[in-house]
């Protein structure tokens, strides 16, 4: 008996030291290149997730089937899916990558990390307002981070990230191969010059957001645009292109032919801007067949927002996002920051001071978007010379914002634009509140905080409803 016991104790330590999971990596085994591949995917997923249901708010899509008169009718919505992909997936891993890169001396990794972080954080704060940042991502030592005021996130945190990104990306590339950005850069394959343009572009978006708070930011935005994404065909656009094996989330969500019960259809307001019945009266936009599929009908008709299928007009809608359309295709990209947006930022920033400069940027923005979508040169020429579009050079902020609205289809940046102008009927003529509006008779101003958060974090601000404005639009 003693022998058995002694032998057991002898084998004891060996038998007990078996608690390392062989199927996963230790922190030491994780590397920068792997983290970059993952964080780029998480960032792109976040920019899809924010729009998946959120696109009802800028009225790109109207709810359909089980989503009819649902989120588009302002049923409380917490954007839980972007909370997950941004706060749980993208940002912690971006922070991890930035920290490792700074420690190891890999400034391009930290620069890319900061620009992706800034874009994700900016998108998030535009939805929710106050958010955890300064106390966030510290692991279980701070399980319930406090919420920073949106003012501080904009004035301090985003500024530091964007300035830091531009500075880091300008630093010399290290000689060590493991510190150089390479093939795991799913967007530019390691071309740092493109990332620099993206970083300036991100800061231009940032300054534009703050232009109502301080008009001096307009000049800064214009200046950043001059160093930002400059390829009219979209070669330097920040976007993740999906593949046959890993199809675009818009394909999976709306595009694929097997989906017979789509959750959303292009809205009445959007389609009208392009089919000649809306603001650009009588002009048939050549982007219509690129963006929508009307199954060969003579005209394109959108669906009223917040409508039940029995509501007037709902049944007339004939346009969908399908695999035959630009964003619904299997290998389509999820855009995050594009050339067209740069030009529209410039146009908006110049409109009050330099009408000619604004007009040039306006036309460039339209052309850039049309080229991206594959509109023929002839069609582009026809459209961009139509006086209803050009106003003979005498365009207004309304033209700029509506063209930007079309060009940024499915991007939630548009919701920020619309709230910057508080859904102004002179900027967005023809825009109507949802047929069924659960907020009463106002437009939606913000997201509800995600369902996931209140139980885990007592610091979540209590907001009465989604009609309450966030700081940026106050």
């Amino acid at each position, binding site marked *: 008996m003693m022998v058995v016991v002694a032998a057991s104790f002898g084998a004891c330590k060996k038998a007990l030291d078996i*608690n390392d999971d062989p199927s996963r990596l230790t922190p030491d085994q994780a590397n920068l290149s792997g983290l970059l591949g993952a964080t780029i995917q998480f960032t792109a997923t976040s920019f899809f997730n924010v729009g998946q249901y959120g696109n009802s708010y800028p009225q790109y899509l109207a709810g359909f089937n089980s989503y009819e008169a649902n989120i588009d009718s302002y049923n409380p919505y917490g954007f839980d899916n972007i909370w997950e992909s941004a*706060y749980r997936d993208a940002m912690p891993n971006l922070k991890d990558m930035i920290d490792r890169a700074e420690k190891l001396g890999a400034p391009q990794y930290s620069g890319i990390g900061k620009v992706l972080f800034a874009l994700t954080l900016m998108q998030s704060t535009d939805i929710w307002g106050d958010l955890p940042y300064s106390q966030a991502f510290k692991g279980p030592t701070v399980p319930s981070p406090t919420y920073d005021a949106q003012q501080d996130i904009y004035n301090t945190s985003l500024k530091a990230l964007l300035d830091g990104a531009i500075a880091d990306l300008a630093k010399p590339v290290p000689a060590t191969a493991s510190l150089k950005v390479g093939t795991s850069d799913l967007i530019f394959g390691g071309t740092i010059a493109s990332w620099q343009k993206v970083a300036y572009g991100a800061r231009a978006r940032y300054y534009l957001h703050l232009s109502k708070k301080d008009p001096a930011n307009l000049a800064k935005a214009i200046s950043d645009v001059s160093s930002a994404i400059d390829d009219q065909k979209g070669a330097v656009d920040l976007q993740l292109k999906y593949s046959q094996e890993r199809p675009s989330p818009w394909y999976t969500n709306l595009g694929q032919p097997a989906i017979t019960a789509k959750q959303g259809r292009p809205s009445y307001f959007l389609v009208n801007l392009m089919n000649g019945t809306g603001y650009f009266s009588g002009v048939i936009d050549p982007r219509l067949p690129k963006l929508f599929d009307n199954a060969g009908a003579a005209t394109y008709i959108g669906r009223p927002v917040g409508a039940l299928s029995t509501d007037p007009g709902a049944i007339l809608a004939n346009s969908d996002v399908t695999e035959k359309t630009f964003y619904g295709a299997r290998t389509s990209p999820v855009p995050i920051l594009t050339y067209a947006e740069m030009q529209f930022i410039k146009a908006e920033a110049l409109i009050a001071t330099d009408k000619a400069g604004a007009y040039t940027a306006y036309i460039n923005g339209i052309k850039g978007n049309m080229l991206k979508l594959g509109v023929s040169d002839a069609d582009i020429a026809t459209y961009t010379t139509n006086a209803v579009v050009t106003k003979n050079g005498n365009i207004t902020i309304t033209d700029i914002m509506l063209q930007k609205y079309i060009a940024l289809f499915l991007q939630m940046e548009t919701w920020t634009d619309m709230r910057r102008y508080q859904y102004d009927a002179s900027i967005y003529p023809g825009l109507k509140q949802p047929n069924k509006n659960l907020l009463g008779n106002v437009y939606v101003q913000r997201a509800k905080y995600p369902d996931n*958060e209140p139980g885990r974090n007592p610091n979540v601000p209590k907001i009465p409803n989604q009609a309450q404005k966030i700081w940026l639009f106050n």
Partner: protein
Amino acid sequence: MLLWGTFMLATQALAQQISVSGKVTSSDDLMPIPGVSVKIKGSSTVVQTNTNGIYSIKATSSDVLVFSYIGMVAQEIVVGSNSNLNVVLKPTANNLNEVVVTALGVKQQKRALGYATQEIKAADIANTNQSNVINALKGKASGVQITSAGGAAGSGSRIQIRGINSLNPSANNQPLFVVDGIPISNNTDQLNDNFQNTNRAADINPDDIETMTILKGPAASVLYGLRAANGAVIITTKSGKGGKPAFSFKSSYSFDDVATKPAIQTAYGNGNNGAYVPTVNTWGPKIEGIPTYNPYDLFFKTGHQAQNSFTFSGGNESATYFTSIANSTQDGVVPNSDYGKTSIKLAGTLKASDKLKFEGSANYINSGGKNPRTGVSSGTIYYLMRSTNTVDPRDYLNPDGSEKTYNASIQNPFYFTENAYLRDNVNRLIGNLGVEYKATDWLTFNYKAGLDHYTDFRQVYNEVGLLISPLGSMTEQRISYNEINSNFFARASKQFGDKWNVNFLVGHSFTHINGTNLSLNGTQAVVPNVESINNYNVYNPTTFPTKKNIIGVFGDLTVSYDNTVFMNVTGRNDWSSTLPPKNRSFFYPSTSLSYVFTETLGLKDNPIFNYGKLRASYAEVGKDADPYQIGEYYSTLQAFSGVSGVRRDIKVGSESLRPERTKGLEFGGEFHFLKNRITLDANYAILNSIDQIVPVPISYASGFDIFVTNAGKIRNNSLEFLLTANVINTPEFKWDINANWSQTKGRVLSMPPGVSEIQFNPETPWVKQIIKTGGRPGDWYGWPYLRVSDPSSPYNGQLILDANGYPSTTQQLSDNFLVGNAYPDWVGGIGSTLNYKGFTFSFLFSFKKGGDVFDIPKTQRYTTGIGAETQMRNEMVIFKGVKNTGTAANPVYVPNDKAALIDQSFYNNSFAYRLSTENNGFQDASWVRLQNVSLAYELPKKWLNKTFIKSASLSVTGNNLWLSTPFNGFDPEASAYGAGSNSVGYVGTGIPSTRSVYVGVNVNF
């Protein structure tokens, strides 16, 4: 107290010694009893009967022989001139010296136990015809809650003793299963919420079971260590007996159907807002002159179970054997579902010498079947719940074999069932080998090692074109589980003087568990209708290996005085590989006391009150973590355009994780009246679970989702009663009644720091179970309708209607209100058995009071307008309640007079995101059910005299034949999240529970 007979040689040879021999049999069945101790009174000479019940002893004519056997009344006989003394022993009148099997297979007198146990006998298990042994315990065991995952073929069941003691939503709160002294797996390898996977204890052949003992508290199970922290179910299997080979054959066949179904309306047909449209809804025009269909009645069919088992056992003086072969097949109540199980068991004992004894058994099991996919927002039952009443659901195929639907957002339940399913196939081997060496008459060594190995091969198939899988998908999963247990113990038992008895046990145990779980998921089928994992374009493989070792040493000391007072102290130290090295060794003690006070008071022969025992115990059990919980890990992602990413895992474990502790204090008593005709067992237990290892959900903004740490405290108070009454006891007619009642109240005493609440299954957004300090496990939170809450107001408690005359809810988005609790206030059972000549009639009612459940699919019946509740429509209604004519801050309530239209929109809105619980399928699921009723007829022996048949019986059994509940829906017993989940109270998404009628025949020869 531990009756270990000893062989002694006669020490003195007296002149008048003669050889006395004979046979000892039982008055019960006249079968020989092996192992009866035959002792010469006043001397130390003892012999035992052999396997044929034969003994032989040398004695003088004046000697008195004492025949004693556990559970039998001892007999004293003067030798006189008899050289042949046959003795018939009678069982002790009623349980006075009842023996129960406790930890490590040790048999103990029940009177010595200082804690609550309950034994279920083979006959009570066989009686139910349940193929899953856990289901056989329904309504019988006090303080034990059995929840089956529904009526799917081979569906799993969950067993929980005295409430949950963990804050961890996925913690294993189920007791340890021990078969013949060696633990086995009762895992439910839950694939996901879409299937009601089988719990592995269901693999056991119920006909192999001799007894099941439920050790309820930690004191009972301290010798199994940390894995028995939730109690233990100790199964002792049948073994061979000496004498002629015995054969038995049992066969049964069942008729199963879904008896309890939600009511539908048949006044209005398919359509919207009163007009016909081929929509998912049943808000169409009044049905006139067209046939209606009840989808629920048409979809479910009569299922069948066929069970056959055959046993063969026997032996001689030195060896016994037991073999069994059992097969059961089941054809489910929904199309395309089946389950089958085959078990082969061999067991034997070998007495190599008087001191050395070997035993071993091997059990091979093959089980598995096929079940359709179900779920919360898609699946067979989901689609069934949405089916309309004017379309025949049986007409679902186009001539080309494609699905015929009336609307694109719904799938036909028949079609879906045939095209989305899980197959599984389990191969399992459970075996053990033991050796016992009796060194001296007071010292025994025992060693036993056991293996439980199974593989589960699963295929989940979703055909191309389903709403859930437009491009088709398939998963092939291979699970393997390996558990090796080694137990060694030495036991000393010695009597000091007449009255003192000491038992001491020390032991060592080693447990090794390792598992693999490899799964390959294929998406985007190349060709439709090909059920092969080779048929896909995109693959994602994953593997989840686990490995853990536990080493334990333990000691157990029992001292008894005069068979009246029993005191027991135990201690155990475990070392677990899953904890950090500095914390992986932990010690936990227990102590218990049992006092049979009627002995002291001399009431033993009192005709009114003849037996009374008081017991008390205090016990601690430590508990380790799951493997690989500590620290941070990174995982690789599925490749994207040839690039694979690396991410940090969202779960992180504390580097200083400590073992969690359960501390139980228990008081109880057992009282027998009217010469044991009435017995009462009462027990009160307080169980504190502290330092729990909880995966605490932390804010995503921390960078993680889950932090595994020690936190939180839950207390459970349980009260249990067991009553048996032997009302009539004549040779011709016997009538027994038994009843049990139990109540468990849990309370959360503290939560992990920084965490205010933990939500269970928050993916069901309408109502949630939330655990918070001061609350109870199972508390439901939601948004009730606003009501006047002002005791001074005459309108207190009335609905507050909004400006349009509709009920309203709170507007604060983050608020949640306590609206109920998922756990019952109390549960109970009343059963009775009547014997008259060859007839045995028994029944068992089970009761559940309270327990609010959330009927997930009720929302489907409401919003689509098929539910009977929605027949009231297109009417103006003045809700009874008040309206506020003042301000929000200073309300002035007057009776409501505003009429509101009840229409499609009203029912839809009432189900809008997270609205009132009253509408969202949240209901009281109290019930009374006829759990089991059985009539058996034992063929008279005289009919069989001339045949080789020893006995034969015929039976008709019904399970779950009658249910009375305020709940509207399917049988509210079936849990939505499967046998592996702690989430109780979510119901209605799986294949519903069935009622069954069995006819059976049982033959022994």
